[in-house]
């Protein structure tokens, strides 16, 4: 019963917030007057002036792409250098030394691409300065990059016969200043009130009760980073175990706030999208597609984890859910979250390209672990990353529109734009590239000694660890079956490459579609136009997503979680 109440509260709150935030973001992006202008307007203009940006001049899609790439490359280099030089830099009370070159490369790519895969343990590796100037900054700007690319695509759809799709600098800056910063500030304070640490002092010391020995407790400026890690669907934790750490996620409230912020902006962006294309039903339809898939898979995860591990039953352990016992498979889970909030988080964090965790996915039951893995493999479009989720979803919509057009023998169109060979090619690239990265990467790792030696769990589960790692990197999620020893030169380099390809080889074709659509004429809707907001279309898009996702990954999943499930229950 309580399970249902917690679910209803979660999705209810999310949907209630979708419209007001979505409306607000539409205002931000359409340059309407806002109350925050009073404070942020001067800051924004100052940034443009100092950077030599003319906010009124717009870019072609190619210039937009160049600006986006340049900005990301420079950010990547900055994070790399910070890690390599942190030993000589201030705000390093624990005296942590330079991060190894391969790990620093991996982390720099990881944060620039909004993946936030973590090959390192936060509290043992990164100085406060690196966490702030490197991680926190990239959390903001990588999220804003995704939102900017999304915005360019919206303009491509709404404009006609023009080559201009907006100004990357303006889109990025406004995303940071007007959306991400204010929300993060509010969330960070809410988290501190629950017990998330926020201090620059050294690690705390205390005397352990039983042993009388001195206990050292890692602290740091965590709340500010945790807030943006969730809101920006980044996911990189301050501490090694991410949001399962009691000082990063201390209470059920902090857990609720964090889970809510994971899906908040991706959900609201659907409304923003509908608003900006002049038909909010279009946004609601996409949100419906996302939510239906999410809820279905969530059910599988909760059911699988709550039923627990048959091995525990044989050993006489009580894992039946009751008023005093959360029950279920509690290995790798925290008591304050129990089964429900651990399963919900695992599903939500992989639906969005967030990747933060509040439980150890590696210790999930086979089907419980299949859910997050498959969520990632669907391409991070079920809500997805901020901006990137929606543009990925729109690639699927283009495919769906195209296929349905072929079926009835009409020229496919979407929101008044003809979908032609060029858009289809780009959409296919967007969908196929992650699939290739994941499957080829997994195959290479399994065929090489370097890839196999750091597998932690034996048998089919070990295969799942590698498949999960490349799925996560190849779709910019960042969560892991963390048993896999991924902080090795092989994985640092290979996963780094996977993350780079997955981010930019998707963003560039998206911008290409934006440029191509912007250049087209607008055609009025006719009786032959397929409406794209109806239940029929929602079901159709879900079908396309499931078929593509299933066909691409079912063989691989069969070798991992599915065979493991059969070994346990078969």
């Amino acid at each position, binding site marked *: 019963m309580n399970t249902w109440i917690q679910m209803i509260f979660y999705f209810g709150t999310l949907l209630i917030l979708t419209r007001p935030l979505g409306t607000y973001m539409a205002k931000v992006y359409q340059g309407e007057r806002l109350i925050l202008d009073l404070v942020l307007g001067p800051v924004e203009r100052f940034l443009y002036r100092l950077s030599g940006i003319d906010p009124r001049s717009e870019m072609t899609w190619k210039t937009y792409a160049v600006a986006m790439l340049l900005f990301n490359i*420079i950010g990547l280099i900055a994070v790399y250098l910070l890690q390599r030089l942190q030993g000589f830099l201030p705000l390093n009370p624990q005296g942590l030394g330079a991060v190894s070159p391969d790990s620093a490369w991996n982390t720099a790519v990881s944060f620039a691409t909004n993946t936030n895969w973590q090959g390192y343990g936060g509290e043992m590796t990164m100085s406060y300065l690196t966490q702030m*100037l490197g991680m926190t*900054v990239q959390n903001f700007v990588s999220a804003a990059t995704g939102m900017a690319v999304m915005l360019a695509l919206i303009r491509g759809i709404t404009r006609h016969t023009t080559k201009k799709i907006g100004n990357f600098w303006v889109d990025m800056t406004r995303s940071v200043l007007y959306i991400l910063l204010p929300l993060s500030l509010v969330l960070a304070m809410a988290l501190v009130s629950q017990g998330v640490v926020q201090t620059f002092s050294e690690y705390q010391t205390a005397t352990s009760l*039983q042993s009388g020995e001195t206990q050292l407790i890692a602290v740091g400026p965590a709340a500010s980073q945790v807030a943006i890690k969730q809101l920006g669907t980044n996911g990189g934790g301050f501490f090694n175990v991410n949001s399962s750490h009691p000082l990063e996620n201390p209470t059920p409230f902090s*857990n609720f706030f964090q889970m809510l912020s994971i899906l908040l902006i991706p959900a609201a962006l659907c409304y923003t999208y509908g608003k900006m294309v002049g038909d909010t039903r279009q946004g609601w339809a996409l949100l419906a597609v996302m939510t239906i898939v999410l809820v279905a898979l969530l059910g599988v995860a909760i059911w699988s984890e709550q039923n627990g591990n048959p091995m525990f039953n044989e050993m006489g352990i009580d894992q039946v859910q009751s008023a005093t016992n959360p*029950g279920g498979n509690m290995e790798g889970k925290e008591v304050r979250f129990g089964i429900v909030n651990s399963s919900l988080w695992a599903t939500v964090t992989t639906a969005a390209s967030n990747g933060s965790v509040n*439980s150890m996915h*590696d*210790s999930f039951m086979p089907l419980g672990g299949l859910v997050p893995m498959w969520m990632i493999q669907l391409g991070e479009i079920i809500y997805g990353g901020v901006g990137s989720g929606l543009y990925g979803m729109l690639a699927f919509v283009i495919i769906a529109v195209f296929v349905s057009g072929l079926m009835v023998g009409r020229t496919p169109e979407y929101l008044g734009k003809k979908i032609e060979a060029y858009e289809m090619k780009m959409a296919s690239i967007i969908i196929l590239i992650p699939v290739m990265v994941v499957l080829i990467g997994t195959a290479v790792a399994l065929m090489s000694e370097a890839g196999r030696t750091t597998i932690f769990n034996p048998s089919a589960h070990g295969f*799942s660890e590698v498949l999960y790692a490349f799925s996560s990197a190849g779709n910019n999620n960042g969560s892991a079956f963390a048993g896999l020893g991924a902080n090795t030169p092989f994985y640092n380099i290979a996963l780094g490459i996977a993350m780079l390809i997955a981010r930019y080889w998707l963003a560039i074709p998206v911008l290409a579609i934006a440029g191509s659509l912007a250049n087209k004429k607008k055609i009025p809707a006719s009786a032959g136009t397929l409406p794209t907001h109806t239940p029929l279309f929602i079901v159709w898009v879900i079908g396309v997503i499931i078929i593509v996702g299933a066909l691409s990954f079912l063989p691989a999943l069969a070798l991992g979680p599915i065979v493991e499930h059969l070994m346990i229950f078969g």
Partner: protein
Amino acid sequence: MKAQLRPAITLLALLTIITGAVYPLTVTGLAQLLFPQQANGSLIVIDGKAYGSELIGQQFDDPKYFWGRPSAAGYNATASSGSNYGPMNPTLEEVVQARIEALQAADPNNPLSIPVDLVTASASGLDPHISVAAALYQVSRVATASGLGEAEVTSLVEQYTEGRQLGIFGEPRVNVLLLNLALDGIQ
């Protein structure tokens, strides 16, 4: 390309100042002002002595104390970690079996079955809580070893049981360190 280089570098530098320095410093300032106890790690300080953090579990294996979740990190609060054992991993079976035996050896006549959270490792290795069932399971052992009566220990467990937040969120639980401090009469 060249035209975009200056905005790229300058804007990154400026946004680094805003989001990487101004923002975390603002949050730190507000946090230290409004929630100093929470922002610094929720330490339990009694008569000038810090006994630990309310939110960070500690190692307990003395029969007179309540035991917390098994920890893959050895309760090292500078190196959080889960076990990452898969559900079929033979090592998982071994370590769980060993934990069952340790619990039974410390309290051979306990008729209750062992709640799952008491023999499985937490996600963080620092979980400060156990389930209410896991606390109640240990009452007989703690009562015997500490010399306090079962009724007294049970009432302490009830006193330190936290319900769901607002009656809805999360799971009911018992904070092990706080409960053990109470057993020692420190709190």
